[in-house]
């Protein structure tokens, strides 16, 4: 007659491995979610900074200007340095700032402008796809020319 020795039966081993796998999968999934959330938030932070930087420049130009003309995606302001034009690039790659001194681009940003009384409603939007999810940052402001 065989005597039973210390150890696990096949059922116990299979059950333990199954339980171990479930626990490992849950742990991995949590770790993966944390790193993904951090990625998304880091990217969103970058988008916010990009949107703020574009908005601050546009606001500065409108305030310093003597007059502003706004229509949809184009803004033309008259400053002491000459005419400054903002417009969205046709390929959607960003907002272009064109002045007598040259041209610069706020990458990834899209702006819209609307005349409102003597001022201009400015909206800046930046979006990007991160881990298959579109994240978007919107900022709105109203700025009146000739004020500092």
């Amino acid at each position: 007659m065989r005597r039973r020795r210390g150890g696990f039966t096949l059922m116990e081993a299979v059950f333990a491995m199954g339980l171990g796998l479930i626990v490992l999968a849950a742990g991995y999934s949590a770790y993966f979610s944390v790193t993904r959330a951090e990625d998304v938030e880091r990217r969103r932070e970058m988008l916010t900074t990009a949107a703020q930087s574009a908005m601050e420049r546009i606001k500065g130009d409108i305030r310093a200007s003597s007059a502003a003309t706004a229509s949809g995606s184009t803004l033309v302001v008259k400053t002491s340095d000459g005419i400054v034009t903002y417009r969205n690039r046709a390929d959607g790659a960003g907002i272009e700032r064109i002045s007598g001194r040259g041209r610069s681009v706020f990458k990834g940003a899209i702006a819209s402008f609307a005349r409102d009384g003597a001022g201009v409603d400015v909206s800046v939007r930046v979006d990007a796809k991160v881990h298959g999810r579109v994240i978007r940052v919107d900022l709105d402001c109203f700025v009146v020319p000739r004020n500092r």
Partner: protein
Amino acid sequence: MIWTASLCRGIADRRGSTLVAALALVFLIFAVVTVCLARIASIYAEAGRQRGQTSALYLAEAGIQKAAHRLTQNASYAGEKQTRLPTGYFDVKATRTGAGYAIASTGYADSPLARHPKRTVRATVTVTGSAFAIADWRENR
């Protein structure tokens, strides 16, 4: 016979301790997972709050600019409530103070959070004809 029974009881005891150890490990791992998930939630909540605050600040600033502009057209302008922009709204209150006006503008950002993120900006505005100047800019949370 007594020896065999004692051995069996010993194995049974050890098996019990293995089960306890396994359950403790499972509990520990689930605790780690719970902490990770709580961290994700806090990362999202904090980032959402920060974004909302930034947006609210721009709305409050829009309120100051709009109020200053209205004051150039109408010296008795006292403020407005719930003026909407695409990302939220602002409330403005303007009061006359000597040569200028004290303006308090609060921006409220649209948000899925129960409490809308808000920022208040206070400024002093002096109006000269159709132009205005903003001074003493203070931002509160």
